């Protein structure tokens, strides 16, 4: 009954990386078409890890990776919603 299902819908987001996340992914930012059915940040991370070793290395220890949706801190279970800029970075060491 999925025979008539349309091609998976996608939406375009900007991903940005900082510190050693940036180094491991290999770019400071990228614009990607992600599956529209990715519900949460954790879903997005799971999907990214299928895209290559650089992402696998960057997210090897998911527990320490922090995220932000449109420049606001967000937990892994947070809904992506309509966020256009999604950031990943290590725990902060400013101040």
């Amino acid at each position: 009954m999925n025979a008539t299902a349309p091609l998976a819908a996608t939406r375009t987001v900007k991903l940005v990386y900082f510190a050693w996340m940036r180094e491991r992914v290999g770019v400071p930012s990228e614009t990607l078409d992600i599956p529209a059915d990715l519900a949460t940040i954790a879903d997005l991370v799971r999907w990214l890890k299928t895209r290559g070793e650089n992402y696998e290395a960057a997210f090897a220890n998911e527990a320490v990776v922090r995220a932000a949706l449109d420049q606001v801190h967000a937990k892994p279970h947070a809904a992506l919603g309509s966020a256009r800029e999604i950031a990943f970075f290590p725990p902060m060491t400013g101040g």
Partner: protein
Amino acid sequence: MTPIIRIQHEDFDLSDEIAALSYGRADIGAVVSFIGLCRDEAGTLAALELEHYPGMAEAEIARVACEAAARWPLLGLVAIHRYGLVRPGEQIVMVLAASAHRRAAFEAADFMMDYLKTRAPFWKREHRADGTLGGWVEAKAGDDDAAERWNR
């Protein structure tokens, strides 16, 4: 009271900030300020490189400042954080809280620093005196604990 938030490479001057804040008014009785400096006890550091998330750094510090303003009767609040290369002995960050009385000013400055440490998107990396690039500074569990104090 509009918090002043600046993310800049240039150094800052604490006295100038206090003068700007208190000029022409006589309602401020207490100003508490914090300055974080680049340490190098081992003598092996050439500089700290501070990477930040432009836009979010300002926005997140502004959010912390608004929380402080909601908790304490503040008459002024300034937060300045540098990015780029900062050498040992140089200033990295400044927070300044002004109020009629000292208790609010002390607590607000303390609160600002605890949250700035755990929430402001900045990351430090070491540049060693021998010319090599050091690792990224690791976050301290104690910083999370310090921020957690304010939720009790």
